[in-house]
């Protein structure tokens, strides 16, 4: 008899990862796609053990100074975008350099190498994501959102939104609303 199996590689990886992490009594969050967040810093010994046990499944821990730094930059950007303090665009480079403790030129190059995108684009991405969230809460008008996210004008905001998504803020809102109704109807 022949059995046909169907499986999801991601779920398997996740499962294996969870088992191994659990056996080492680590406190963690699986971020998916080859990333695990350890909530407290374990010893080098523990990491080594984990690496050995995961190697049996063809998984290896990639410890990279660069990735850690990039994550730090990303966190700093998210924090910056989501704070209600208004920061002029010209000051973001100084803010990030200060926060990471490296020159802006260095972190900007590093960021581009690792993520295939620039810090400026990443900031826009995060800002637009925040804008999307604000649009969907339906509490603020487009004008208010533009002001809250420190855009110089509604036109500038709409333009950047359109540049990032190909859609106007109102079209975005309409599509998401329709999609929700669509799911509800099914």
């Amino acid at each position, binding site marked *: 008899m022949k059995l046909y199996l169907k499986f999801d590689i991601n779920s398997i990886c996740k499962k294996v990862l969870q088992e191994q992490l659990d056996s080492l009594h680590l406190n963690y969050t699986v*971020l998916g796609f080859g990333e695990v967040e350890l909530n407290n810093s374990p010893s080098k010994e523990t990491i080594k053990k984990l690496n050995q046990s995961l190697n049996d499944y063809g998984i290896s821990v990639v410890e990279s100074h*660069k990735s850690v730094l990039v994550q730090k930059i990303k966190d700093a950007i998210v924090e910056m975008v989501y704070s209600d303090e208004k920061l002029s665009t010209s000051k973001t480079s100084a803010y990030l350099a200060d926060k990471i403790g490296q020159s802006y030129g260095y972190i900007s190059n590093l960021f581009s190498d690792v993520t*295939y995108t620039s810090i400026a684009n990443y900031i826009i*991405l995060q800002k637009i*994501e925040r804008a*999307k969230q604000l649009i969907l809460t339906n509490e603020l008008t487009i004008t208010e959102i533009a002001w809250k996210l420190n855009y110089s004008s509604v036109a500038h905001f709409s333009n950047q939104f359109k540049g990032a*998504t190909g859609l106007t803020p109102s079209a*975005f809102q309409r599509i998401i609303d329709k999609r929700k109704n*669509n799911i509800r109807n099914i």
Partner: protein
Amino acid sequence: MQSEIIRVMLADDDEDDRLFFREAFEEIKIKTSVTTLNNGIELMDYLNKPNIVLPHILFLDLNMPGKTGLDCLREIKANDTFKDIAIAIYSTSSSDEDIEETFVQGANIYIKKPHDFVMLKSTLSEVITLNWQYHTNGLNRDNFLLSI
């Protein structure tokens, strides 16, 4: 560093477009594996086969015989197994109705096929990169809409 190869899949009945698509990815510096399928029926048969590795991102031509891109989109969105696949519509048409309809049906990206190879490369590269951002930054994929 990108540690994983991004799996890209395309369903398009036009041979030339499949060629452009593959050639474009060959020239893009992002690590990808590209699978192309000749139409919607072939695509769905493939996806429903057991034991296959699902793509990270699927490009769908809209105008295909048998099963149109929209048919495939609906089928994929109705099946929970495929919920992690990002769907990019890849079409000649760029009518607002088509764009809105596919987004409402659950597509994440709408690409109007560029009429220049350089532009095609940059567009595909941008799409892959942005999709990657969503994957790696824990962003809400429900809000991921891109029309390019």
